[in-house]
């Protein structure tokens, strides 16, 4: 996925000379995850540059750069390190189009290596999506594989509105199986990554692969689960969510973020609003627990496992 993201940045910078890439360590060193590797050499230190350790300042600068007609791709080094920028993101990045009556656009992309599963240090395994999805004016996407990563990042950079890209660290080393393109991907649309009729598992990011493993395991019990990769967390693809529930009657939502007000709550609420009469069992949420992200030695107990996902599907089917 790292290579796909790097290619997306490269192609976007090549196609649009107003695109800038900046953040901590993205320049000379190419980023702590190597996502920006070689970009400074290719496009120069004026378009790809390191910033001081000032997340709020960097995002604020991106806002000013947007007034000056630049499209910034800002990297936050890790999930939790985007929190210092929340005021700028909530008050300005998300609201500036409205604040200027549509006259000033904020084509800003904020890349955030996110989620856990890499035995990371404290503050390096958080799932910040709720903070962004709840904030009107932002779009939020999260790819589950290299091809989607390329497509979603290209779309995010091209989008006239701010897009938060939550990159699943645990999938950074995944290799692309198909050629990189943004064809067939839209911000605002999810996709069925595995068909099935017994129940639908709605998920995103690193939990897509895990949900597919769970679905495969369930095949053994002759139970076919559909898996939906939401891809875009805001705006949610309500039509797809409702259609799948109408067709399968049962739903499970899987994510790493703590359960309370994690995305699963919104997916559940929309299912109830849009497909209540088709719902044959309570929606089950398989999520991280309502605790701070645990240390490496415990993270496998915290993260949704194949077993927990499979058990939830069996449960809603047996209900």
């Amino acid at each position, binding site marked *: 996925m790292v290579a796909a993201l790097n290619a997306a940045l490269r192609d976007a910078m090549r196609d649009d000379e107003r695109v800038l890439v900046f953040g901590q360590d993205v320049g000379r060193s190419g980023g702590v995850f190597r996502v920006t590797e070689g970009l400074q050499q290719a496009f120069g230190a004026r378009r790809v540059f390191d910033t001081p350790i000032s997340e709020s300042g960097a995002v604020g600068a991106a806002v*000013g750069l947007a007034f*000056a007609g630049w499209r910034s791709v800002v990297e936050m080094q890790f999930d939790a390190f985007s929190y210092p920028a929340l005021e700028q993101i909530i008050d300005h990045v998300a609201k500036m*189009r409205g604040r200027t009556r549509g006259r000033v656009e904020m084509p800003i992309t904020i890349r955030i290596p996110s989620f856990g599963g890499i035995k990371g240090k404290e503050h390096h395994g958080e799932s910040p999506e709720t903070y962004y999805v709840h904030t009107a004016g932002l779009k939020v996407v999260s790819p589950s594989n290299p091809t989607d990563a390329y497509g979603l990042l290209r779309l995010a950079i091209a989008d006239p509105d701010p897009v938060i890209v939550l990159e699943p660290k645990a999938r950074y080393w995944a290799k692309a199986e198909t050629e990189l393109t943004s064809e067939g991907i839209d911000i605002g649309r999810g996709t069925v990554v595995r068909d099935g009729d017994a129940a639908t598992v709605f998920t995103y990011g690193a939990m897509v692969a895990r949900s597919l493993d769970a679905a495969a395991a369930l095949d053994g019990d002759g139970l076919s689960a559909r898996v939906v990769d939401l891809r875009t967390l805001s705006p*949610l693809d309500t039509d797809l969510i409702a259609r799948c529930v109408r067709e399968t009657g049962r739903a499970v939502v899987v994510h790493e973020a703590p359960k309370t007000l994690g995305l699963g709550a919104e997916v559940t609420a929309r299912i109830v609003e849009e497909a209540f009469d088709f719902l044959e069992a309570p929606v089950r949420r398989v999520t991280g627990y309502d605790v701070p992200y645990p240390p490496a030695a415990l993270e496998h107990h915290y993260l949704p496992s194949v077993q927990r996902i499979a058990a939830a599907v069996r449960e809603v089917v047996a209900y």
Partner: protein
Amino acid sequence: MLSAFDGGHSRGFCVASEPEHWRGTEPVRVLARDGTVVGDTDVGLGPDELRALLRHMLLARRLDRECIALQRQGELTVYPGFEGQEAAQIGSAMALGPDDFVFPTFRELAAALVRGVDPVQYLSYHRGTWHGGPYDSHATRFGPICIPVATQIAHAVGYAMGLALDDTRACSIAYFGDGSASEGDFHEAANLAGVFNAPVVLFCQNNGWAISVPTTSQTAGEIFKRAEGYGFPGVRVDGNDVLAVYRATRDAVARAYAGDGPTLIEALTYRIGAHSTADDPARYRSDDAVTRAQAFDPIARFRTWLTAEGHVDDALLEAWQAEIDDQVLAIREAVIAQPPPPVESMFDFVYAGAPPSLGAQRREVLGA
């Protein structure tokens, strides 16, 4: 040393003859408080421009008072007056070139007038009919009104970085207050400006107060001195001396144009009125502190000098006053006449294209 615990506030204003936050390093001055010349008055402005400075200040003060009246009459929501800060705002704004971009706070109506922002559009913000910048920020090169203090400083720095990347001979200016300078965003933006040698002017109006908190309880240092830590110059200027403000800003703009980077200007001024129409200063400062500060009034000072120089006379001043009254009356009527915004405008500028769920909410509101 005294700490804020030990009633930092009671260090108040009772003894000082000039505002306490003016103590310490002497600010750069051209005109003394009584209008006598103490510096080089040749700031590069001809008689017409000098007169324009005064006329802007007179209009600004008159309009500011009108806005307070409008708020009292229920025609505006909470309004933050700027009486006493006319020289700081107008002297600095007049020193900007047409391509320079202003990132204001919520108190820069005087600067907005200089930049040609339509006051009626500007006031629709305070009328409560629009958030941010109801006027066209690109056309006026005046950014949206900014309330979360210090956030706009980073915008100005980013804009300046963009100018540098485009090799445009222009700069940006961020206005902010003494209290705003305590925010992390001030620091991050100032440091970024230094690192990228951005063509930006960081203009601090130190008016002695952050709502009820005096500058002396806001920081133990002098704000302009922070610049050195960021590797660029800082100057302290008498913010009630319009000529001194003009020159300091013009020099900072020249540095920016020349590629010499940022400048931090601390303009010492005084907030004569309340923080806003919702604020009651009697709770935290003595009237007599204000009376004393009024002796430093920027308009009286400049008018005295202009008159002495023979650039203005009573006849002209009276003629202006009449014009200004009409101007302000017209603004007043136009503000009141403003229709409320259509309800759907709440939805129309959230995204370039509204997602389906938002479209549904929009239809719900329109009862459609």
